[in-house]
């Protein structure tokens, strides 16, 4: 099967799909070990693309790691091709010594790895019953990120204690820029160059990106080339015209960085055809504010809630797999999940969000409970809700 790559080419998904598997695989020698493994031609995994984004097929994935080639994408100027030997990161502004680092330099500093999610703050779609988890909230993915702590670089350049914000700038055609509080930079920000064991993929910022655990995707500036240390925010287009949201009383919320707790049941979900009997309800839960403390599942449209099992280890600011064993008796019902994080926050309903933000509520930072309707015939449908 052909798939469209990020460079717009159509290439075979892995190796070309064989006409058929041999009737008895024990009777024929298979191919020997190879330099690069392949995806089974029987597995057709793909992101769902639009002009500006591509969405992770959450309903098709296991565990918590997102295969790097299925990590969601959201760019504002496409995916730049960057020669790693020409790459440099400049840090200047309110620093003792403005400095330039090559990619090799970045890799020579003490390094750190962490498994964490990355989610676009625009990660919410609704509208019809025939929607998959991928379509509803496929703009979240998880990787093991490796890089150097930004604090290490701040120490190296002598960032001023008086500085309060820094500008992160990418080297894509959008020359993407975001203003970030220095506190985040000193705390847990990374300049990441590794993703799931290998170099970052071009779609995720190769050869280096800003990674801000738990913060909205857009702030995690990809293909980063420059950091300017400052004592005020820069008010770039992305943090004003975009990535801000209408709230009550005509107000517009800016610098809303943290991704609030959220969860979604990824099985059973549209377009699954469910069989009666035992069902392991499975899904993902995450919070940009810390660890997932608990996930609760309801199988009666939200009347009663039961704790789901969390897959250990539960990590800080990470997709956490939850599971809940349920025997479906064949009656129509609604199932849903809600995440509770270690700050005590409980994932709200859409109505609670409207109550809090007003009916002019903007499209970012929407993390409502997702409900699935299970019909008597076993079909599973998304339950869309409107507010505008």
């Amino acid at each position, binding site marked *: 099967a052909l798939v469209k790559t990020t460079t717009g080419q159509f290439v075979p998904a892995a190796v070309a799909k064989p006409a058929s598997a041999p009737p008895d695989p024990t009777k024929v020698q298979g191919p020997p070990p190879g330099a690069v493994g392949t995806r089974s031609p029987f597995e057709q995994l793909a992101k769902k693309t639009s002009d500006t984004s591509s969405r992770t097929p959450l309903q098709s994935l296991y565990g918590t790691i997102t295969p790097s080639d299925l990590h969601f994408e959201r760019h*504002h*100027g496409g995916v730049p091709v960057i020669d790693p030997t020409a790459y*440099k990161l*400049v*840090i*200047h502004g309110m620093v003792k*010594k*403005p*400095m*330039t*680092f*090559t990619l090799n*330099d970045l890799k*020579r*500093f*003490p390094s750190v790895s962490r498994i964490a999610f990355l989610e676009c703050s625009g990660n919410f779609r609704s509208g019809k019953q025939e929607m998959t988890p991928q379509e509803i909230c496929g703009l979240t993915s998880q990787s093991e990120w490796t890089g150097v702590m930004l604090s*290490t670089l701040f*120490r*190296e350049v002598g960032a001023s204690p008086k500085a309060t914000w820094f*500008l992160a*700038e990418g080297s894509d*055609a*959008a*020359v993407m*820029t975001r203003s970030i509080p220095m506190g985040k930079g000193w705390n847990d920000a990374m300049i990441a160059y590794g993703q799931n064991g290998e170099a970052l993929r071009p779609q995720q910022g190769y050869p280096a990106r800003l990674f801000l655990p738990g913060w909205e995707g857009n702030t995690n500036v990809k293909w980063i*080339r*420059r950091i*300017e240390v*400052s004592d*005020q925010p*820069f*008010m*770039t*287009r992305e943090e*004003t*015209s975009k990535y*801000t949201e209408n*709230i009550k009383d*005509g*107000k*517009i*919320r*800016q*610098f*809303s*960085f*943290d991704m*609030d707790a959220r969860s979604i049941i990824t099985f059973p979900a549209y377009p699954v055809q469910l069989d009666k009997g035992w069902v392991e309800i499975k899904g993902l839960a995450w919070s940009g*504010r810390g660890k997932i403390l608990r996930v609760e599942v309801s199988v009666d449209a939200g009347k009663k809630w039961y704790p789901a099992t969390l897959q250990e280890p539960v990590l800080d600011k990470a997709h956490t797999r939850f599971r809940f064993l349920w025997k479906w008796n064949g009656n129509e019902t609604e199932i849903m999940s809600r995440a509770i994080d270690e*700050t*005590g*926050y*409980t994932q*709200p309903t859409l109505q*609670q*969000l409207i*109550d*809090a*933000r007003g009916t002019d509520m903007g499209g970012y930072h929407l993390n409502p409970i997702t409900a699935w309707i299970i019909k008597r015939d076993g079909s599973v449908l998304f339950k869309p809700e409107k507010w505008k």
Partner: protein
Amino acid sequence: ETKIITEMPATFGIGRKATNAEIKAWDIDVRPDGKGLPYGSGNATEGKVIFTQKCAACHGKEGEGGAYARLVGAMGDTVKAKTIGNYWPWSTTLFDYIRRTMPYNMPGSLKDDEVYSLTAYLLYRNKIIDSTKNMDAKSLPKVVMPARQYYVDDDRRGGPEIR
């Protein structure tokens, strides 16, 4: 003899001093206080000419939107789209954004005077300045955007509260 240090040293001695030239080449940002604005100027009349040539194909003849975003819609108009006039809080952002990334198909190709002119044109079209007003490093930061007053910093405070 090998020296073992378990604490982080003050510096690692990795990387080199950035040259002024390389900082200058990349330091294109513009702050609300005008820091970063270059020499040059332009007005709406000049801007309209450039807009017609380089922008109208995507954003509509006069910025009313086309294949891509509507750019015009003064505060209070019936326009539903978020526009410079009804949503953008800082005038400097316009200069910064146009210069760094527009036109989309030739990002970073505009001269500073052109950017000033386009900025003036779009501010004029959004009924924020008049058509004769010259935009430069001094005047642009002084332009107060109608939506500025509505902006508040993130009011979510963490914890149980839903906001």
